[in-house]
């Protein structure tokens, strides 16, 4: 079971919306949609683990932190994200991080 963490991304949300539309028009069943989402979880977890190789550094100030159910949630302010090539500055960002050591079944966002 892969993390369902990535469902709240652009890719994940657009998939869920598309599935909802198909359910509304009764072209698929909700059960099938759930299966698709599970497949999506697997695909994105493996894609991120294998096909992505870049590194990012960032620095900012920590506004809040929360650790609940082995999920860290941070809110940072005035962050600079630095990659080899580009620099992105954001005034506020929320980080949701699941435990990377043990990829057990997890339904956190």
């Amino acid at each position, binding site marked *: 079971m892969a993390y369902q963490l990535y469902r709240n991304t*652009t890719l994940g949300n657009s998939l869920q919306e598309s599935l909802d*539309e198909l359910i509304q028009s009764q072209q698929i069943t909700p059960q099938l949609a759930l299966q698709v989402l599970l497949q999506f979880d697997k695909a994105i977890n493996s894609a991120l683990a294998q096909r992505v190789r870049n590194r990012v*550094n960032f620095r900012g100030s920590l506004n809040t932190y929360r650790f609940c159910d082995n999920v860290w949630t941070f809110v940072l302010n005035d962050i600079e994200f630095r990659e080899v090539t580009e620099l992105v500055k954001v005034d506020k960002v929320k980080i949701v991080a699941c435990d990377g050591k043990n990829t057990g079944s997890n339904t956190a966002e």
Partner: protein
Amino acid sequence: MAAAAMAHANLVPKLYKSIIDDVIEGVRELFAEEGVEEQVLKDLKQLWETKVVQSKATEGFFRHSHHSPQFTLQLPHSFHRVLQASAASLVIPTGRGFQHFTAADLGASRVGGTLTLPSGVACPIHVPAGVTLQTASGHLYKVNVPVMVTQATGDASILHHPVQQIFQPLGQPSVLQASIASVAQVNASSAQAAAETLQPQETAVQHTVVFQPDVMEKNHLEKSANSTLVQQPSVSQQQLATNAVLNQRADSTEKPQHGNLHTAVFTPESSEGFSHAESLPNNSSSVLLDVEGQLDIEPQESAQQQVSDDIIDLIIMGERFDDNAVLKDQDSIASADKMEPTEQMESNLRSEKAVCSDIEGIIQLDGTGDVSPKEEMPRIKNREENEFIGIIESEDLKVLEDEEDDEECDSISDMESSSSGGDNEEPQTDIVEEDPLNSGDDVSEQDTADLFDTDNVIVCQYDKIHRSKNKWKFYLKDGVMSFEGKDYVFAKAIGDAEW
């Protein structure tokens, strides 16, 4: 350097595309097992890619983006009938020419038939009455009045502003058939204006009385239905009172088979069918007729007590019923043939009256060291009134009297609420003074709510989170970032922050 930047910019679209392809391939078998057509899978992929592109999260995702706003017309069973009634034909232009779909063509697909309009429709669409429209987003709209739907843009959002949304279950099929064909133009760009123009046009329709409550949103219909339903209980309660009175008269006449009366009377009140509410007067009269000559003496008392309890409840709910009228009826019945149970009833009623007057006399007040209202009840019943009268302050007494002037006999629960309402006023006066002193202590709670609601989100996994005093170090991996709508990914991310 520039190549690396471009590589990363290209990385995300390619990555997403590969993920989409993987998912679609992975579920292809699932779809086949479920018996879902291949076309649905293609639709899913198309929808997904469209949305990703529209979100502008990636650049250069697709070179050949095909915007396909889809309209699906779901034709109801009676579509062909309605078409014949309104004598209109479905006109769906495609931009180059007008394609006419006659009723015969569309009648072939009766049950749940869908008609997908070609993409890129940019011309007015004439939709006859009785057609259910469904947008790409899945909203269903039923058109009761033939409309012209003009599409200003090529978006699928056009039908977010349909003609009407009518809920069929409320059972107004006659309205559909009798609707007069009035063409209204709906512009996607000015939906609200269109809604406003529609309403005055609807007034021209004969069945205005039916239409006007049917506001655009189906929720309103449900609410109106609920409101009409809610009104019924008050009617049914009045009916109940008359029933109870009639029952008394029926009971006083010694007749067998009281059980019938009992069940016949009390099922309307127990059931929540609102048709019963209207037919209650009929029921009561018919029951009365049936009862004469059918009552039993033995179960009569128990039933009478139940009925009398109901009457007592009715009496206690003083403001809704005419106490005097009911009591007079009770007295008249008491003077009727059977004395014993009626006397018992009468004594019950009188004791209840006494309690009511006692409650009226005891204006409960608690001090700041309040006890729960439940504990007050036994005190009332123990009649330790003198204690409380001493405690009552004149100001609060006036307040409570003002509250209770309109209510003759409150139920005990009402007393509790009024007394506790009076109680709340006392400590409130103290708190008002303290508020300014403590108002600065609270950190605004909105921060936490709004704080976590931000557009810039990173979803990832953590390898290690380290803290030293207020210096935090983050070791993250496999993350997807979204800043101001743009997406990024990383395999590893290391960060520092100070709290």
